C-alpha cells in the first residue's frame, strides 16, 4: 500500500488514513463534524449522497479514544469514504447529529446511542431502539459493561416482565395512528400523556 493520499480540503479534517480494504478514512474534529459532512454531501465533486452506516468502536486499550465511524458512499461517483470522530472517554460522549443531512441516519444514530451511550446533539428522537426504553443497566457494547448485565437475573426478569410491551411506538407513529382513529383507547391516553412506561421500584426484601 502506498502512502496515504494528500488530505482533501475537508473542513475540520485532522488527518487521513487508508483502511486495509483501500477506503479512505478521514478523521474529523468533533466540533466541525456537521460542517464537514455538509461539505461532503453538497459540494460538487464530492456528492456523498448515500449514508451507509454509522457505528462506534471502543478499544480494549483504555488510552485510545472511542471512535464514531460514518460510512458514506457517492452513488454517482461510486466512491466510498469513512469519516471518524474521536471521543475521549473522559469527555462528554456527544457528537452532532447528521439527521438533518441524511434522514436515514435517524435509527442508526439511535442504535449507536443505545449500545454505546453516545449522544447525538440535534437528533429529533433520541431514544433506545434495541433495548427497551426503561432499560437501566447501561450501554451493552461498552467495554465496562459486564457480559451478563449489571443486575441479577431475577431483577432482570422482574424489570422485563413489568415493562409495557406496547410502549415502544414513537410519538409520531402514534399520532399517525390516532389520526386514523383505529387506536385503542388506552394507547390514545398514553399518547396524550406522553407516557412510555415506568418500571416500579424493586420491593424491599
Amino acid at each position, binding site marked *: 500500500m502506498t502512502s496515504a493520499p494528500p488530505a482533501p480540503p475537508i473542513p475540520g479534517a485532522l488527518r487521513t488514513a487508508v483502511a486495509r480494504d483501500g477506503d479512505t478514512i478521514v478523521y474529523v474534529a468533533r466540533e466541525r463534524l456537521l460542517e464537514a459532512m455538509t461539505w461532503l454531501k453538497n459540494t460538487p465533486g464530492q456528492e456523498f449522497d448515500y449514508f451507509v452506516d454509522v457505528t462506534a468502536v471502543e478499544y480494549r486499550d483504555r488510552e485510545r479514544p472511542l471512535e464514531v465511524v460514518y460510512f458514506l458512499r457517492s452513488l454517482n461517483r461510486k466512491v466510498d469514504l469513512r469519516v471518524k470522530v474521536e471521543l475521549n472517554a473522559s469527555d462528554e460522549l456527544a457528537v452532532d447529529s447528521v439527521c438533518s443531512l441524511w434522514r436515514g441516519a435517524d435509527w442508526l444514530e439511535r442504535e449507536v446511542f443505545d449500545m454505546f451511550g453516545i449522544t447525538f446533539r440535534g437528533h429529533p428522537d433520541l431514544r433506545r431502539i434495541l*433495548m*427497551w426504553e426503561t432499560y437501566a*443497566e447501561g450501554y*451493552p457494547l461498552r467495554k465496562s*459493561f*459486564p*457480559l*451478563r*448485565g449489571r443486575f*441479577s*437475573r*431475577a*431483577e*432482570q*426478569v*422482574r*424489570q*422485563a*416482565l*413489568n*415493562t*409495557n*410491551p406496547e410502549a415502544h411506538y414513537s410519538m409520531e407513529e402514534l399520532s399517525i395512528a390516532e389520526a386514523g382513529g383505529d387506536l385503542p383507547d388506552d394507547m390514545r391516553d398514553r399518547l396524550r400523556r406522553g407516557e412510555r412506561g415506568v418500571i416500579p421500584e*424493586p*420491593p424491599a426484601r
Partner: protein
Amino acid sequence: MKRVGETKDVSGQSPNYLVAKFQDLVDWAVNSSRANSLWPMPFGTACCAIEFMATAASRFDFARFGMERQAFSPRQADVLICAGRLPFKLAPVIRRIYDQMPQPKWVISMGACASTGGIFDNYAMVQGIDTIVPVDVYVPGCPPRPEGLLYGILLLHKKIKGESLFDAVRRRDEQPLDEKGLRLAPETIDEISEPFGNSVHQFRSS
C-alpha cells in the same frame, strides 16, 4: 327361599368405588379429547421455528396427532410452543400471550435457548422461559429435529392423559404473577439462571 333381586355383595369395597370409576371415565373422556385435539400456538423466534415449520409440513405432519389447526391467536390455542431464544424484550409479550390463552393450557419449550438460554448467556436473553411461564415439556436440541418435537408432543399427550379434573394435585390451575410481577421467587430465578457448561468460565464482571 332365594331372593330374586339379590344384588352383588359390595360390603368389602369402598362405597366410593362406583364414584371413582365414574370419575375415571370422565377423566378418560376429557383427557383423550384434550390430548388428541391440541391446538398449538407457535411462538417462533429463531431457527427452532424452521424445524417447527418442518414438523407442521407434510413430511412430519403433526396434524396426525390432532394438531391440524395452528392457532395464530392465543385465544383459540391450547399449547404454546416457544421455538427459539427469548430476549428480555419479548418476556412481557410471551407472558401476555400465555395469559391470553384459555385454560387448560400447556407450554412446550422447544430447543436449548428456550429451555436454558442456550449459548446466549448474556445481558439480553432470558435464561429459560420457565422463569416467565410454567413449562410442561422441554425439547432439547439446537435445534431439535422434527422427530424430537413430535416426541415432546407425545410426551405432552401422556402428561395430559395423567391429569384429573377431580384431583386438586393433578389438576392444572392458573398461575398468575405475584405482586412483584414474577412467577418464581427471585432466589429460584437466580438459581435457574446460573451459568453452566462453558459459560462458567465467563464471569459477570468480564
